[in-house]
């Protein structure tokens, strides 16, 4: 027995007690560590394990609705369905060969067919989906869902859901999007919403935001913005964001490490009370705005390329119509119909020379032309420089130094009344010469020219009411009389927005009270409870002698009434309108390479009509601007009359239906 003879176990035996001691001590250390983890620190780890599986899922708040004065919904929300696919599930054949799984048939072709994608779209998506799977990582894009069609029609969604098996790997994601039932009609007033951009988000959520206590967070970010949120971008949507937005809610759910909801009853007791907080819907806005009148404005402007209409209540400053042309479709640019539509729409709208994105009622400033003459006349009367009955002779031309200033034609002998009615420039040149630019500017400023009205919906241009100081500053002291003369007829450096002109005429119509234009009448809770009612706000009461104002308003009546008035052709005994026409020259330098027809169009005069109705006791002021419309009397005035006709009909109907 070779083995037995070589067996000297004695050498080893001395070691075993040390070995045994080591083993016992080591396992004691492990037990000690387990005691530490499972007994002493158990609460901490239990808490962490609970945090791992409980997720607060935010519930978006419904954005507030916007209604007009007649209860028509101008902005609300609708359901929208996006279709997302998981590349690895719809195109398993594109996965690396060793990645075998449960999904083995390609369903992409079927899905693309159901989604009614074009063959080109289908194939370009197929390439992108395949590329997503060309990596070997576990959490690659191959397993992340990708949205392939936004704002999908309902019938497609129904088909996808009914035949889920054939569309393996496609999911329907329901979201809520903003909708504007009147579309482009209310574009500039309402504006539109969009996804919050990174810059804005950083302002509300600066670095380290996530570590702050919740009340600290609320201080910096009172509206609780999160990435991907919808915010008002322009218009009412932006200006009234705080009211419309609402407050998101949350619900606690049990979620596993893969992000799936788990509903086993055994775990539901882990959800501590309160387990949910319902979202608070945004507040609704009720406007003074009247969509029917807006429709009339749009209809009246149908033949024009560009321009603006403002209708304002004379005795309150409430805005009834606010129309800017050309418009855009807010449903497109809000992204509700998909990002592709949004990008395509902006690519079309941004370079358009007619500036459809610009709100011409407030953001655009234009020379007012003759519509400013009543204010120049008022300046002369107030300062007792102008004798209303004194006649001037208009021979079509007048010379100041070597410069010739001209009128439309020879008006002959005119007094103030006739000069307003017939819009005689020569009369106003002579008036300006004696009154001076600063007195004209003082009255102009009192009526709100050169100053923002405070509508605060879209960026507002202040326009410009030039003074002597202004011109001196610009032209280095070489002041010329021509500046004064141009100012009196609303030319030269003078500009106004249609909204400014409307509120100035409203002040003429109401005896001298300038209001802050107001578009939101009241704020109503989502349950319909009235939360806040806005009263008309007076900007200032303009000090002037009633008899002077009466001479001006009389002149405005004569514009229509007098047989020689510029708008006499439109006179309608059933529609007592007073107002003032304007045809303003525009300074236009043609661009190199511009076509002759384009240069011709852009150098045409702007056409204005500012109206008050009814002329004896005005209720409403309407300002119509037709850009490059050539003639105030021939182009702008008929539009204003058409709108006022609609106004009269609407108010008759309402008076009739009122109890």
């Amino acid at each position: 027995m070779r083995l037995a003879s070589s067996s000297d176990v004695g050498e080893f035996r001395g070691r075993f007690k040390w070995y045994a001691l080591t083993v016992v001590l080591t396992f004691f250390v492990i037990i000690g560590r387990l005691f530490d983890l499972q007994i002493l620190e158990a609460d901490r780890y239990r808490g962490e394990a609970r945090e791992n599986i409980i997720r607060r899922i935010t519930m978006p708040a419904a954005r507030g609705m916007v209604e007009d004065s007649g209860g028509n919904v101008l902005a609300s929300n609708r359901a929208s369905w996006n279709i997302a696919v998981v590349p690895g599930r719809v195109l398993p054949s594109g996965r690396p060969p060793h990645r075998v799984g449960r999904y083995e048939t390609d369903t992409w072709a079927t899905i693309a067919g159901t989604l009614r994608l074009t063959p080109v779209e289908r194939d370009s998506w197929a390439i992108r989906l395949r590329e997503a799977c060309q990596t070997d990582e576990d959490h690659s894009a191959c397993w992340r869902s990708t949205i392939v069609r936004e704002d999908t029609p309902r019938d497609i969604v129904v088909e996808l859901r009914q035949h889920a098996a054939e569309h393996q790997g496609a999911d329907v994601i329901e979201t809520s999007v903003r909708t504007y039932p009147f579309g482009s009609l209310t574009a500039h007033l309402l504006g539109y919403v969009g996804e919050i951009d990174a810059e804005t988000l950083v302002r509300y959520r600066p670095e380290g935001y996530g570590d702050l206590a919740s009340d600290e967070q609320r201080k910096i970010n009172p509206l609780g913005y999160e990435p991907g949120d919808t915010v008002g971008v322009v218009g009412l949507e932006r200006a009234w964001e705080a009211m419309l937005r609402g407050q998101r809610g949350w619900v606690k759910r049990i979620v596993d490490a893969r992000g799936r909801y788990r509903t086993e009853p055994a775990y539901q007791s882990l959800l501590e009370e309160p387990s949910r907080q319902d979202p608070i819907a945004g507040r609704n806005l009720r406007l003074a705005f009247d969509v029917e009148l807006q429709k009339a404005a749009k209809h009246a402007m149908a033949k024009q390329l560009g321009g603006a209409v403002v209708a304002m209540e004379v005795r309150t400053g409430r805005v009834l119509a606010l129309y800017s042309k050309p418009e855009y479709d807010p449903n497109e640019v809000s992204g509700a119909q998909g990002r592709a539509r949004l990008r395509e729409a902006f690519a079309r709208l941004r370079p358009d020379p007619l500036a459809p994105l610009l709100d011409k009622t407030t953001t655009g400033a234009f020379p007012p032309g003759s519509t400013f003459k009543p204010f120049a006349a008022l300046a002369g009367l107030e300062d007792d420089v102008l004798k209303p009955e004194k006649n001037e002779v208009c021979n079509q031309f007048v010379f100041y130094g070597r410069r010739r200033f001209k009128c439309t034609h020879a008006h002959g002998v005119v007094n103030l009344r006739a000069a307003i009615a017939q819009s005689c420039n020569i009369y106003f040149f002579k008036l300006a010469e004696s009154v001076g630019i600063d007195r004209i500017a003082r009255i102009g400023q009192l009526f709100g020219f050169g100053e923002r009205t405070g509508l605060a919906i879209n960026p507002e241009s202040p326009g410009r009411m030039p003074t002597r100081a202004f011109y001196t500053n610009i032209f280095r002291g070489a002041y010329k009389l021509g500046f004064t003369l141009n100012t009196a007829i609303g030319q030269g450096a003078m500009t106004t927005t249609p909204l400014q002109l409307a509120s100035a005429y409203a002040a003429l119509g109401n005896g001298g009270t300038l209001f802050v234009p107001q578009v939101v009448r009241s704020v109503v809770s989502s349950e319909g409870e009235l939360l806040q009612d806005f009263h008309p706000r007076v900007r200032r009461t303009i000090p002037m002698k009633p008899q002077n104002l009466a001479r001006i308003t009389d002149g405005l009546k004569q514009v229509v009434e007098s047989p020689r008035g510029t708008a006499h052709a439109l006179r309608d005994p059933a529609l007592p309108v007073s107002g003032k026409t304007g045809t303003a020259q525009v300074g236009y330098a043609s661009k190199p390479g511009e076509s002759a027809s384009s240069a011709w169009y852009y150098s045409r005069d702007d056409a204005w009509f500012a109206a008050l109705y009814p002329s004896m006791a005005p209720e409403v002021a309407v300002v119509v601007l037709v850009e490059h419309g050539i003639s105030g009397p021939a182009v702008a005035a008929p539009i204003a009359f058409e709108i006022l006709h609609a106004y009269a009909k609407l108010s008759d109907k309402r008076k009739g239906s009122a109890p």
Partner: protein
Amino acid sequence: MARGLRPLRRIVPARDHFDWPLFLGIAALCVVGAINLYSATSAAKLALQELYVQQVYWLVVGGIVAGILASVDYRMFEKWAWPSYGVGLVLLVLVFILGRDIRGSSRWLSIGPLSIQPSETMKIALILVLAKHLHTAHGSEHRGLRDLLVPALIAAVPAALVIKQPDLGTGLILSLIFASMVMLLAVPLSLVLRLLGSFIAVVWAVWEFDLLKDYQRARIEAFLNPEHNILGTNWHAHHARVAIGNGGATGWGFMLGTQNQFHFLPDQFTDFPFPVLAEDWGFAGSCLLVTIYAFLVLRALEIAYQSRDRFGAALATGVGALFFWHAVFNLGMVTGLLPVVGVTLPLFSYGGSSVVTDLVGVGFLMSVSAHRQS
């Protein structure tokens, strides 16, 4: 003729000296391990849910092998030592040529429908060869460095091949089995301390001169900062620790632990089955399992102590070391006492190669136990 029949005659005493405590300990471990595997994979995908069945197959196969080995006189195994060592080395070399690449290292060899891990079988071969060497390396009263050289060389070759795969965990286990076995030799304490000192120096050098793979370095750095980078390198270790703590004193109950049921434990059936048990059964269950391991290792040492020859003593010590170091590294890793090294929990982790390897070791133990001094 007589030589060939001798092992058969030994079957009779094997039945008489059947080691019931060892058998019951192992059986308990296998049963608890399979049940735990059922819980561990219950929440997983369909394909994984069948894993415990596979494990039962492997346990049966390993059990039969162990039964056969237990009934053979362990002195027979001495003859197999060098052949199995040779085959083991060949397989380890083949891994580099034919191995399948999984997560950046080639550890597997496909033979027909089977995938085997040669590094696992190498453990058994190493134990056999070292036991054979220690058996014959007797006599000298003054043990010195020279006595350690040959066994060191025997262990270094496979350890180097395994570390090259790279599989640091198994390389470590091979080295520790070697250390545990050669320390049976009566080397003076001063030499042991000197070796320990130079080992520390080597570890320092490896760290300092950046000889580790990036992922290995990342794991150790993760261990040194356990609460850092929980979503990345510390994900495994962190969620394992949370699962253990989440078990508390008595646990959530079978198949109810939330970390496992909600998929926060990756590799819950291979390297991290213990957190599943700790979460389901709490401190009570964990203590029971640790006690079983402690019992098995101590039992192996007892068998070694009572062995009638050096080969049996060394063999039993080697198998005890195999269980001990696997258990210590796995439990140390999941409780955060040690860095994450991929070391399985014996008879608990899923895996055919390791289950069969462990049970072959148990067969050796049973045989040594049956043939020890009565």
